[in-house]
């Protein structure tokens, strides 16, 4: 496992203006399944979770500046020592119905822009995962 430094990530985020995704160690970069079901906290699902509703206010988190990056890593380090880092270009061609929105300082969300089935969302998130570049792993001192 190759450990990367904050300088490596700083280059991506500050100089190359990439969006950075922080993920569980050895986990999936875009798709979080809990007991085989898609995670509830990222998108706006129908009550039976078979459909996902268009919602521009909630989505997968990406850091767009160093302050937010550190904040997300610090939050995740409460649960994991090793944290995987991925990067993607802001203007990458995304599957239909998905879009990046810069919703806060230092933060972008990958949001759903049209109603779709949860099954379709999972397929699209698999496609997005292939568009992300794996940068490596950071290990937080504990």
């Amino acid at each position, binding site marked *: 496992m190759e*450990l990367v*430094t*904050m300088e490596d990530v700083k280059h991506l985020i500050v100089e190359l203006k990439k969006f950075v995704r922080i993920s*569980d160690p050895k986990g999936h970069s875009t798709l*979080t399944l*809990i*007991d085989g079901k898609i*995670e*509830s*906290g*990222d*998108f*706006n699902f129908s009550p039976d979770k078979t459909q996902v509703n268009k*919602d521009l*206010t*909630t989505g997968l*988190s990406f850091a767009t500046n160093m*302050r937010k990056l*550190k*904040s*997300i*890593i*610090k*939050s*995740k*380090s*409460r*649960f*994991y020592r090793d944290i995987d880092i991925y990067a993607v270009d802001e203007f990458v061609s995304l599957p239909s119905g998905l879009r990046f929105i810069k*919703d*806060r300082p230092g933060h972008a969300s990958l949001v759903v822009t049209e109603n779709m089935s949860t099954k379709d969302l999972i397929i699209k998130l698999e496609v997005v995962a292939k568009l992300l570049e794996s940068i490596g792993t*950071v*290990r*937080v*001192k504990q």
Partner: protein
Amino acid sequence: MNYVNDFIKDYILYYSKELMPSMEVIFSQDKIATEKEAKDCLQFIELMCDQCIIDVKENKTILDSPASSHHAEKATMVIEDFIEDSGFDYLIDNDLELE
């Protein structure tokens, strides 16, 4: 609080009731009014994450979903945004030490 889906909102309120009932009033406001309230929010984040670790270990179900660190992380981000939006961002410690 802004930028919060219904599940995460319910998740925050669930742990408020369980761990620190005084937070419910603070979370119902548009803004945090005082530095003391902002510090209480930070304390609540620590309590919520510690409890989440316990709940995951005990395979508990929270709001019809298996306990998961993802929910606590998302909730943390929402509460930190709330603190920042209220002008108390200087209280959030983002210092990181990597190996």
